[in-house]
């Protein structure tokens, strides 16, 4: 247990110690070696790099240098990444064998290891992180702490204003004040549908019932998307803090986070965050000396795409098969065990503490008229800089793919970008200059989705892609609605026929008719959209 004064003291002292992480002009002899410990870099042996650095530092008796494991820096295609602060030098594709040279040349002799620096597409070498084109147009709000703090150390989170928003909410604001602030900020759900977050909180607050729940949807099933995973791996406390703020606002004392079992690092880090918060008395009873109590439990998914749909997710948390059900009643009135339940996505939650601290005016000054703030995208496929990107709403797709993403590799041409996963759609070249927000993406036949953004070059066949997504839909159809269970299978058969070169014009007609039927007669949005995407692929390409 820590008192509020003790937490304030930790914040003040730790912040001084960590100043060199963010203040690149810091005048200090200390250095921090930051090594990415997200899933991408971990897969290419970054834990071994951390271990090697620590071993060498110990052997050489170097004391003013610390090695820190952080969350994702974003530029996954250059991983494993090592960054040295305060000078902000960015080393790409590091191996455990490079550690010795980095210590000898950089740390001891103060010279840069040229061969490990990053090259832009025009072959220009870049030394510092903030000079990379990849970061220039980005604005990090949800990802603010990712790649800066050690996600397994609550003190580092507290140092960068962690749990300050919770303190403000509990000691200075009424639940109505909090909801008003979130509503005024214009924050909309980042899971894909874009429902106004403040409105959702309000609906759950006024719903009748003494027991209410907060649920965090971290079942990031969209293949090719890893935004939520990266937030949980890089900054789990921010999501935990936001869940507590939401709990206070709607009158809930219990939260669940539903995470895919395929994300072991995220699950582990979030559990560590819960345990540390409990140890500090931030999670539990009488939080910060008030009457407010809150507890959070982790629930694992087991590989079912449909469980990202909120009613299916509720069934899964209850231990059942994840079949969606008809709405209304909405979860706000009848959710987990039929009690009022607030469900928000990871990225939505990650924005909340920053809105409380900086105010709704600040947040609503970013973005477009109807879509405020930023959006995190997982940029992948045929693009030079594969990775995690956070941009203000209203940034165009061209800026993301070409300025941030570095364009298409191997001298190929851009063909299409796919957003919104299996439920979304493809954006052809003529729509590249559309500013990205919820409405504009819908108007060009795609959708925001959760943030997967897959780029395809001109060698890719769109019918094949439609077939790929339909195959996914057939596999993942939960089987509850007959039109979806059987219809998508028939649609796949027609597409297979077309890709074999045996398609007729009649097949196209049949495909479209079937797609419309599935769309109109299935319960959940996933399939509705699944069929939509194949209709559109036909129209555009």
């Amino acid at each position, binding site marked *: 247990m820590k008192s509020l004064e003790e937490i304030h003291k930790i914040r003040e002292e730790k912040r001084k110690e960590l100043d060199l992480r963010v203040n690149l002009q810091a005048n200090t002899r200390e250095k921090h070696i930051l090594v990415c410990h997200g899933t991408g870099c971990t897969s*290419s042996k970054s834990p071994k790099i951390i271990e090697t650095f620590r071993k060498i530092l110990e052997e050489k008796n170097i004391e003013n240098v610390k090695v820190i494991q952080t969350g994702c820096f974003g530029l996954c295609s250059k991983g494993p990444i090592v960054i040295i602060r305060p000078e902000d030098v960015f080393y790409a594709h590091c191996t455990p064998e490079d550690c010795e040279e980095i210590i000898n040349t950089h740390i001891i002799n103060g010279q840069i290891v040229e061969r490990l620096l990053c090259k832009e597409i025009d072959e220009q070498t870049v030394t510092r992180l903030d000079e990379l084109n990849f970061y220039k147009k980005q604005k990090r709000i949800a990802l603010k702490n990712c790649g800066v703090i050690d996600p397994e150390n609550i003190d580092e989170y507290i140092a960068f204003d962690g749990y300050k928003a919770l303190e403000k909410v509990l000691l200075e604001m009424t639940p109505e004040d909090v909801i008003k602030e979130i509503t005024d900020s214009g924050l909309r759900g980042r899971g894909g549908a874009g429902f106004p977050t403040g409105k959702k909180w309000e609906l759950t607050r006024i719903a009748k019932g003494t027991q209410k729940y907060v649920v965090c949807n971290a079942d990031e099933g969209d*293949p090719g998307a890893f935004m939520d995973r990266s937030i949980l791996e890089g900054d789990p406390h921010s999501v935990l803090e936001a869940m507590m703020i939401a709990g206070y606002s709607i009158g809930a004392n219990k939260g669940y986070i539903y995470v895919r*079992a395929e994300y072991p690092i995220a699950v582990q880090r979030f559990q560590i965050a819960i345990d540390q918060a409990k140890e500090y008395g931030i999670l539990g009873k009488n939080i910060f000396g008030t009457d407010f109590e809150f507890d959070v439990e982790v629930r694992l*998914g087991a590989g079912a795409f449909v469980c990202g749909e909120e009613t299916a997710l509720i069934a899964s948390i209850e231990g059942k098969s994840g079949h969606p059900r008809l709405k209304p009643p909405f979860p706000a009135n009848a959710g987990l065990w039929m009690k009022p339940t607030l469900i928000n996505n990871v990225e939505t939650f990650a924005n909340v503490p920053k809105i409380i601290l900086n105010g709704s005016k600040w947040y609503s000054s970013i973005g477009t008229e109807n879509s405020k703030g930023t959006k995190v995208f997982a940029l*992948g496929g045929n693009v030079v800089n594969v990775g995690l990107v956070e941009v203000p709403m209203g940034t165009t797709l061209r800026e993301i793919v070409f300025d941030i993403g570095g364009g298409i590799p191997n001298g190929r041409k851009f063909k299409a970008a796919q957003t919104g996963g299996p439920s979304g759609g493809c954006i052809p070249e003529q729509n590249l200059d559309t500013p990205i927000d919820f409405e504009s993406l819908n108007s060009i036949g795609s959708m925001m989705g959760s943030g997967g953004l*897959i780029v395809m070059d001109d060698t890719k066949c769109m019918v094949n892609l439609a077939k790929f997504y339909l195959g996914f839909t057939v596999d993942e159809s939960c089987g509850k609605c007959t039109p979806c269970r059987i219809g998508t299978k028939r649609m796949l058969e027609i597409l297979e026929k077309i890709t074999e070169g045996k398609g007729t014009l009649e097949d196209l007609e049949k495909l479209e008719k079937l797609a419309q039927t599935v769309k109109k007669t299935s319960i959940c949005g996933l399939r509705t959209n699944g069929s939509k995407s194949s209709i559109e692929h036909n129209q555009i390409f």
Partner: protein
Amino acid sequence: MCCECNNGENYQDTKMEQILSKYEKDKSNLIQILNEVQEGYGYIPKHAQLAISEYLGIPMAEIYGVITFYSRFTLEAKGKYNIAVCLGTACYVKGSEKILDKLKEKLGIDVGETTPDGKFSIEATRCIGACGLAPVFTVNGEVYGNATPELLDKVIEEYKSKK
């Protein structure tokens, strides 16, 4: 810890008891328990289903329904080396289908099957989140990035020569 083989019934029962003792008798724990059984045994054996059914008071039929609904749960043991090819969109766009085809051809089995000697099994997974390294495949969880059919060839040969 007990052995990983399937012939020591008594060992398995202790293992099941250990797993169950961590959970309250609450029906909503079903998926959590199944996840742990899947990790511990590599599949969900029948006696484990019986034990869970008794412990939580859920009919066997319902447990079977849940197991077959979720793709992570399997009713048969996987091979000693489970090779999983990522079929997420990012990997697909970069040619993971070719990797999977090559793998099927090389081992002579289909997705979800195990070689007769019990050594290899093939799994097609959705995104594992290592999109920066696409296409990827994993062998018992170890990730191989920027995969090509040649790399796959090399890796399989390595595992074949292992006992």
